[in-house]
């Protein structure tokens, strides 16, 4: 309030200075930062308790404290809290970007090492510990087949389930389904793997195999993946169906369109971009799952096109197996496979989002 008394300088008439609170000058924040860093360097090196990383950490803490004190003195408590939280939120962003950027950088730089035609055109069949070749052809086939089958199973089931929950279900039963779909999102992938192991591999598959022995198969992995994907698909579809404006439905009803047709022709197309995005995200998650495939598909070194018989590998499993191998060539294969897997997943995700965007424009 002292500004009202002390300001006699000429001011632009549009913004009378009497209405503005005192603010920290623009150079205050960088100044505090520099002082904090210098102080922290002094403390850390003076006491000899660490290196440059600690200087940055202590400096950041000092900066937050200094900023709060400075703003508190000039601008008041509320503004000081605002500034400090703002700085904290920005630093959280920086803090998280560092490891994630490191992961991406490592992935690209290490993965490029074996990124050659041989990697994509050969399997690991007859590749010994001293062979530099060997590739992930069999694993790529496995991933595509397993995820494809899992999607075929999950999408109709999941979308119909979501339609039931949103459009038809009422009362306790629908609530129970909704509740357990939510609960199902939290089921660990390894548990679904064990479930399919206990159910399909150990109990059902002996009925189909000629020798009556339990056998691993890509289809079992697809089953496990579809159990994983189902809640994601249901949840995202549910959310999207709920976002469809009620007037659209009411308009259709008013025209005498039956409910099922309204759902199929009005509600679903409106929600389609979101549903597709949800499905693609579920697919991407399933493609990256290692644990269930490890438990029920067995993972072989040879190419196996048949998902219903014999071991199959997958890209994620290939990465895990190569990471565990002692050969000096296996880390390069693991990283390249990881890069391939990530590329596959990202292409799926990006394609889904672009598709969603185009659909939205088209309407």
């Amino acid at each position, binding site marked *: 309030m002292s500004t009202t008394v002390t300001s006699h300088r000429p001011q632009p008439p549009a913004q009378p200075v009497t209405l503005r609170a005192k603010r920290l000058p623009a150079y205050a924040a960088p100044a505090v930062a520099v002082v904090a860093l210098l102080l922290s360097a002094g403390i850390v090196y003076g006491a000899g308790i660490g290196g440059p990383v600690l200087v940055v950490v202590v400096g950041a803490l000092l900066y937050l404290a200094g900023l709060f004190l400075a703003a508190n003195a000039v601008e008041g408590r509320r503004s000081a809290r605002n500034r400090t939280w703002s700085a904290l939120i920005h630093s959280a962003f920086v803090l998280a970007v560092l490891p994630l950027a490191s992961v991406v950088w490592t992935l690209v730089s290490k993965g490029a090492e074996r990124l050659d035609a041989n990697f994509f055109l050969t399997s690991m069949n007859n590749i010994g510990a001293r062979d530099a070749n060997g590739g992930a052809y069999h694993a790529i086939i496995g991933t595509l087949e397993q995820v494809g089958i899992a999607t075929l199973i999950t999408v109709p089931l999941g979308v119909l*389930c979501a339609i039931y929950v949103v459009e038809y279900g009422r009362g306790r039963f629908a609530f129970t389904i909704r509740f357990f779909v939510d609960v199902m999102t939290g089921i660990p992938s390894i548990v679904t793997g064990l*479930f399919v192991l206990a159910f399909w591999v150990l109990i059902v598959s002996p009925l189909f195999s000629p020798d009556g022995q339990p056998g691993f198969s890509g289809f079992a992995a697809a089953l496990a993946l579809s159990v994983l994907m189902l809640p994601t698909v249901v949840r995202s579809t549910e959310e999207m169906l709920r976002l469809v404006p009620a007037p659209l439905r009411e308009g259709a009803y008013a025209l005498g369109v*039956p409910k099922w047709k309204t759902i199929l022709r009005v509600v679903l197309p409106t929600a389609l971009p979101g549903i597709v995005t949800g499905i693609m995200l579920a697919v991407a998650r399933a493609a990256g799952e*290692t644990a269930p495939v490890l438990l029920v598909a067995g993972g072989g070194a040879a190419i196996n096109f048949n998902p219903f018989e014999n071991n199959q590998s997958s890209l994620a499993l290939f990465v895990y197996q190569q990471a565990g191998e002692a050969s000096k060539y296996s880390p390069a294969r693991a990283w390249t496979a990881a890069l391939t*897997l990530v590329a596959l997943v990202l292409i799926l995700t990006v394609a889904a989002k672009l598709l969603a965007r185009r659909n939205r424009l088209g309407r």
Partner: protein
Amino acid sequence: MGDNPHRSAHAGTGGTHVATSHEGPAGASARVAESSGNPRMTDNGLGGGGALPRARAFGAERAFRGLTLAAGTAVLVIIAAIAIFLIAKAVPALRTNTESFWTYEGWFPNENPPKFGIGALAFGTVLSSALALLMAVPVALGIALYLSHYAPRRLGNSLGFLIDLLAAVPSVVFGLWGRDYLVKPVADLSAWLHEYFGWIPIFGEGPYGSSILLGSLVLAIMVLPIVTSLSREVFRQTPTANEEAALALGATRWEMICTAVLPYGRPGVIAAVMLGLGRALGETIALALTLGSTYAISFNILESGGNSIAANIALKFAEANATGRGALIASGLVLFAITLIVNITARAIIYRRREFTESAA
């Protein structure tokens, strides 16, 4: 349920008559209904609504409804089947166990007599997940707020897109990265923590390296994009009117976030954190690659060692015989139970919250 006004619409209102009688003149639908042997419809006093046909016993509507009901029921069936089949395979192995399943610290189910216990594994699972969430959630919420309310819109959108992409990166990649590149920095950090904070019991003696700390750091980095992406989505959906009202009343940006954004987003944030927790609890491969795989209960998070139920399943599966498989399935059952309890608790909280926020809105 206040957000579903469409539910009040009658489920069986529209049969197929109206829609299929396009070829007739506009007023002909009443005659169609009449000729289909349904006189009740024509004189029910509804005026123009006399064209309303009766709901058919076997029509597309019923069939579609039944189909969706079956799909909905399938979810319950699957969850029940998971429990039943896991129990069926776990019980025989548990019967042959010669040590206490809950307290024995070791895993020798393939030997004769079989000895295995879940105690250390369950402890490691809970400890590493809790640590991971402790590290990841504040940062994730910070980033989500940054992307939704601090960053310029364009930058926020593209960075948010990047975070969404990172959420899709498979866990095995994070595990591989943690094992190959994070071990050294974590070992240095461990030594430093022990030197200066050794008086805190969790920062104990080495050897450092593949420790719970490394595992939970990798978990935290893995969970971070998921929690961020979901909470950002929730924060962005805050009604603009609420935000503008707060700002118009003179709130600073942080006060606006406290009063408008966070209360609105709380159920969604809890859901996001729980999803992250679920992923951390069940994370297999990243921990199988980064933990030292020992069977001891220890609060020393710096020492090489540690284990989790899921990682143990992945590591021991290849060498397991029938009893070993049963033992692993039994441990999976425990994991299933833990995640189920966590999830059901969380969902119960969210549903109560959701009713609360909806009635308040």
